[in-house]
C-alpha cells in the first residue's frame, strides 16, 4: 500500500517536472504546445546517447540534458513559435502536432524505433524496505532519487517565482501582458527565457524518466496526454496547481494499474473528464485569477 503510494508520488513528481514548462507557456502565452513531449524526448535521448556512446556518468548527463534542451527551446521559440502566439488555437494545435510528427520521424530515422535502455549507476539500483506486513514501504533508490531531485527543483522554482526579480516580471507578464510591457518589462525576453526554462525542465524530466517511463520515438505522443491532463486539471495560474494535479494523476495511475489492471488508463481519463466537466478551468484556480 505505502509502496504504491510512494511509487505514485515519484511518478507524479516526475510528471510535474515534465509538465511544468507546459503550464507556464500555456499560462504566459496562451499557447497550446502539443510538442512539449518532444523536448522531453530530446532530453532523454541526449542522456542515453552520452552514456552509451561517450561513457559519461549519469549525474553529469542531467545538466547537459537540461542545458541542451533549453537551448533548442530558445532557438525554436525565437524562430518558429513566436509568430504563432497571436494565431487561433487551431493553428497552434496543427503547428505543434506537425513539430511532434517531425520529431518522432526524425528520431526514428536516426536512431531506430527500438526502446532505448538507460544503464543506471550501481548506487541507484538498490531498494530499501521499511516496516512490516501490509504497511511495508519499499522504496527503489532510483525513485527516491527522483523524488529528491524533483522536490529540490520544485522548491527552487517556487523561490524563483516568488523571490526574484525575474519571477515577479514573469508573474506580471502572466497576469497582464500589455500592462507589463507598458511598465517597461521586456516581455519578449521573459517569454524566451521562460520557454527555454520550460523546455529545459522537460528535457531534464525526460532524462530522469527515461528509465521509468521508457524511451522510444513514440514518447511525445504517448505522454502528451498526461502532460496536458496535468495542465488542464491543475490550471495554469500557479505552480502548486499543476504540482497537486501531477501528484493526483501519478497516484491514481499507479494505483489504478495495480488494483484494476484490466481497465488500466481508463480510470485516469474518466477522472479527468469528470473533473473538467465539473470545473472546466481546472481544480486549483483562484477566484478572479486569469483563467
Amino acid at each position, binding site marked *: 500500500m505505502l509502496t504504491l503510494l510512494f511509487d505514485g508520488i515519484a511518478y507524479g513528481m516526475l510528471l510535474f517536472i515534465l509538465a511544468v514548462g507546459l503550464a507556464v507557456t*500555456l499560462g504566459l502565452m496562451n499557447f*497550446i504546445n502539443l510538442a512539449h513531449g518532444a523536448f522531453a524526448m530530446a532530453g532523454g535521448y541526449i542522456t542515453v546517447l552520452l552514456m552509451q556512446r561517450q561513457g559519461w556518468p549519469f549525474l553529469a548527463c542531467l545538466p547537459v540534458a537540461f542545458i541542451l534542451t533549453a537551448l533548442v527551446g530558445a532557438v525554436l521559440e525565437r524562430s*518558429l513559435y513566436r*509568430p*504563432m502566439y497571436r*494565431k487561433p*488555437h*487551431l*493553428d497552434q*494545435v*496543427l*503547428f505543434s*502536432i*506537425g*513539430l*511532434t*510528427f*517531425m*520529431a*518522432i*520521424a*526524425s528520431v*526514428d*530515422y536516426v536512431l531506430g524505433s527500438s526502446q532505448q535502455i538507460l544503464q543506471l549507476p550501481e548506487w541507484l539500483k538498490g531498494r530499501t524496505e521499511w516496516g512490516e506486513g501490509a504497511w511495508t514501504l519499499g522504496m527503489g533508490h532510483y525513485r527516491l532519487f527522483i523524488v529528491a531531485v524533483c522536490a529540490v527543483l520544485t522548491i527552487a522554482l517556487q523561490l524563483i517565482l516568488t523571490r526574484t526579480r525575474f519571477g515577479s516580471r514573469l508573474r506580471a507578464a502572466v497576469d497582464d501582458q500589455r500592462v507589463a510591457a507598458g511598465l517597461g518589462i521586456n516581455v519578449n525576453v521573459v517569454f524566451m527565457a521562460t520557454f527555454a526554462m520550460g523546455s529545459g525542465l522537460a528535457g531534464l524530466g525526460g532524462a530522469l524518466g527515461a528509465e521509468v517511463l521508457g524511451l522510444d520515438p513514440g514518447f511525445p*505522443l504517448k505522454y502528451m*496526454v498526461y502532460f*496536458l*491532463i496535468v*495542465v*488542464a486539471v491543475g490550471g495554469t495560474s500557479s505552480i502548486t496547481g499543476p504540482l497537486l494535479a501531477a501528484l493526483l494523476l501519478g497516484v491514481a495511475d499507479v494505483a489504478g494499474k495495480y488494483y484494476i489492471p*484490466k*481497465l*488500466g*488508463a*481508463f480510470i485516469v*481519463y*474518466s477522472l*479527468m*473528464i469528470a473533473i*473538467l*466537466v465539473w470545473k*472546466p*478551468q481546472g481544480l486549483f484556480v483562484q477566484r478572479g485569477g486569469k*483563467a
Partner: protein
Amino acid sequence: MSSTTNWRWWELLLWCGAFAMPWLWAERALVINEIAILALFAVSLDLILGYTGIVSLGHAAFFGVGAYSAALFAKFVHPDPLLGLLVGAACATVLGAVCSATILRGSDLTRLMVTLGVALILLELANKFDGLTGGTDGLQGVVIAPLFGRFAFDLYGQVPATYSLGVLLLLFVLARRLVQSPFGATLVAIRDNRLRAMAIGIPVAQRLVVVYTVAAGVAGCAGALLAQTSGFASLDLFEFHRSADVMLVLVIGGTGWLYGGVLGALVFQVLQKAISSVTPQYWTFWIGLFLVVLVLVGRERLVRPWTWRFGGQRV
C-alpha cells in the same frame, strides 16, 4: 439566399465525375472508396470545427464507434449493409449526444482534453473487452450481404466505392442544407463571437449540442462505411493520429466550406500514397513539415494561390 443555395454547374459535374471514376478507372476503385470515406469524415468535422469553431482532437471516437457497431451488427445480427449503416450512425449519434454535454463549458484547452479523453477511453475499452472486439487483433470475419440484395461487395472495390460515394453524396446534401439554413447561420455566429451570439438570443448551448450530435452521427456513418467496405475493424480506428489526420485533411481543403473536406481528402490520400511509396516508414515527417509550413504561411492562403505574391499580407 438563393444564389448560394442553388447547385452550380461545376458541382453537378464534380459529382457525376466522382460516380463515373470507379467504373472508368477500375484499378483505383479501392482508393476512391477510401477517399470518399475520408471526405465524409472530414465533412463531419467541418460541421463542428469549421462552422461552429469547436477544436476537437477526438473526432475519431465517433468514427470508431460507428465502425465497431456496424461491424458487430453485421457479424452477430444481420449482414445487410444499409441496416448496419443505420446502426453505426445511431450508436455514434447517441454517443455524440452524451458527449456534447462535455464540450459546452471551458476554454479551447478544456475541449481539446475532453474530446481527446473520450477517444482514449474508447480505445482502452475496445482493447480490454477483447472478447467482443477482438482486442489488438481487430474484429475479423465481418461478412456483408450484397447491397439491396443484388450488388455483392467485390474485391475490386467498384461496388463499395459507388456505395460510399452514394452515402457521401446523400449526407453532403443534408449537411449543405443544414449549414445554409438559418440554423447554420446561427452556428457561424457562435463561431465568430459567442458572447454576441448569446446576446442576440441564440440558444448557444442547445445549438452546440445539436451540431455536435449531428456531426457525431455523420462521423459514425463514415466509420460504418469503412468497416463494411473493408470487412474489418481495428483499434487503430480510435488512435490519436486518426483524429489528427482528419483535422489535417480539413485544413488542407479549407475549413468552413463543405467542399474543403472533399478536396482535402483527395489531396491527402494522393499525398499519402505518393510519399509513402517513396519512404513508407517516415512519411509522418513530411506530413509534419507540411503542417508546420502550412501554419507559418497561413492556411487561409494555401487554397488561394492569388494571394501568394503579396508576401506577408494578412488575409
